[in-house]
């Protein structure tokens, strides 16, 4: 750490082999050197550059437009692998829009278009020849409101693999059971998950089912759009514990309105806001979570995390 602008995410565990079961990887420090994240901040500048040991998603000069209106302006950021990155900011600042850009869900909105790059594992997801369905398979999305399909728990989880051509029963069984276990739902549903409807579960269980459903497609990245905002505190806690567990194997990006949640679950935090001139969302500050919440470099960030606006 040679300058005060260099920050290390101390808790970041080594990237786990994806065939390994998600054990309590938290308690295995020092096996490999943890990836370091260096953040360079130019004083007064609104954009910051992040460099990490391993970058999962590299966003470069991202602009998102809805028709003639620019919704997001010039976002450049590197999202580290096997960590939780939180997007915070006031309503309408474009954080969900950016999130959905990562798995090309914005393609579905008529008139939406982007400029810039979203590079996932070295490949721009907006390249010609890249199929949105392929991107969405590698990048999972968990929605704000739990939205299981009106099918059995088993069919919900098997939905993705089946659409991708997995037909073998034994293989499906294995994927379904593994995904439910990894989503910390197994103990609650193991007796009747083949018969019970996903809609018969409680809200928190439904959200974990949605996470299991996403895990079943074996994504690299899981995007979560305010995944706990419709849940009670106990269910929220379970989701947060699950996120902590999942980051051993996956790269997680979470949009949240709840700043306590951001500080609890994430290693990196990006603060977005609306610009006053054209109402477009832009990235104010991106740094490790501790810094954003205790010692932000931008006055706007300071004002937001201390509750003075937003």
């Amino acid at each position, binding site marked *: 750490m040679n300058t005060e602008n260099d920050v290390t995410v101390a808790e970041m565990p080594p990237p786990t082999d994806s065939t390994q079961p998600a054990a309590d990887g938290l308690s295995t420090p020092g096996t490999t050197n943890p990836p370091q994240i260096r953040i360079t901040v130019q004083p007064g500048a609104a954009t910051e550059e992040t460099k990490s040991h391993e970058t999962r998603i590299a966003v470069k000069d991202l602009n998102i437009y809805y028709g003639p209106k620019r919704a997001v302006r010039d976002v450049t950021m590197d999202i580290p692998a096997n960590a939780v990155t939180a997007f915070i900011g006031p309503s309408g600042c474009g954080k969900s829009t950016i999130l959905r850009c990562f798995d090309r869900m914005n393609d579905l909105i008529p008139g939406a278009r982007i400029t810039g790059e979203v590079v996932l594992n070295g490949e721009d997801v907006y390249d010609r020849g890249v199929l949105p369905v392929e991107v969405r398979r590698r990048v999972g999305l968990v929605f704000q409101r739990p939205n299981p399909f009106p099918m059995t728990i088993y069919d919900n989880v098997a*939905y993705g693999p089946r659409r991708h051509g997995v037909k073998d029963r034994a293989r499906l069984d294995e994927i379904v059971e593994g995904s439910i276990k990894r989503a910390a739902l197994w103990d609650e549903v193991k007796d009747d998950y083949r018969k019970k409807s996903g809609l018969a579960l409680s809200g928190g269980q439904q959200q974990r089912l949605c996470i299991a459903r996403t895990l079943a497609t074996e994504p690299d990245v899981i995007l979560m759009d305010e995944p706990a905002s419709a849940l009670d505190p106990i269910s929220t806690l379970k989701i947060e514990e699950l996120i902590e567990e999942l980051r051993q194997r996956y790269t997680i990006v979470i949009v949240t309105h709840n700043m306590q949640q951001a500080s609890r679950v994430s290693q990196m935090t990006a603060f977005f806001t609306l610009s006053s001139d054209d109402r477009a969302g832009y990235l104010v500050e991106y740094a490790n979570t501790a810094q954003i919440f205790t010692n932000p470099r931008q006055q706007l960030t300071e004002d937001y995390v201390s509750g003075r606006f937003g």
Partner: protein
Amino acid sequence: MRRALVWDRVATGVFWAIGAFVVAVLGAIILHFLLASMGTISLDFLTSNPSRTELGGVAPILWNSFYILVLTLLITVPLGTIGGIYMAEYAGNGRLPNLIRLSQELISSVPSIVVGLFGLALFVIAFGWSFSAISGALALTVFNLPLMMRLAEQALRGVPQDERDASLALGATKWQTIRNVVLPLAIPGIITGIILTAGRIFGEAAALIFTAGLSTPGGYDFSNFNIADAQSPWSPFHTSTTLSVYIWKLNSEGLSQFVHQIADTSAAILVVAVLAFNLLARGLGRALQRRTTGSR
């Protein structure tokens, strides 16, 4: 406060009364024809052929009604559902969908007797199918297809966007999403569409007078499966008076002394059949939804 409570009571009473009135009208219609058909209705009436000298029965006419109903649904339901999928999922807001929508509305407002005349010119004369079940079924398709399409479209649009997004976010294609998530969820709505369409088809008279004809081959031989033979009950080319047309015919030119009894009883059968059909379709819709979605 007191006034508000009084008005609350009044409003509740008015809505209840209107609801009760609707039920009463339906009940009165059913009751009237059930009472009018007492003494005439019997298994014999349902299973014998019409006669000029005795009471006779309506067996072939009842058969024709169901035959035309099924034939029309076989054409209308798949086409209407596919059209509905196009309109709800693919069409967007271009010029073509607007034109389609306009045509749907226009065809729906054309009087059915005019559709009958069109059927006479096209199917009966130009295609040479004469007065037959197929001519009738196609005439019925002309003005029920837009309705079926519209209802299927509404059923599909009623499926929450959440469900589609969830499927797409898992990497499913648009068609996989429609096939596996949207369609199963829309099935109860589509079944309701089929019920409404079926009711109209079963009860329709005007469009059939010039297309399906006013007579029926005397005495059906149900072992005759030659569908090219216009005497076979299975053939789409046989002249097919339906119950509704039969009632109209009896009342306008019936000569038998039993005309009113036969007409009333036919009406009772018509009403009961439509009711039974609705209930059946409803149950079927529920069962289908349970099977395709696995929900309880």
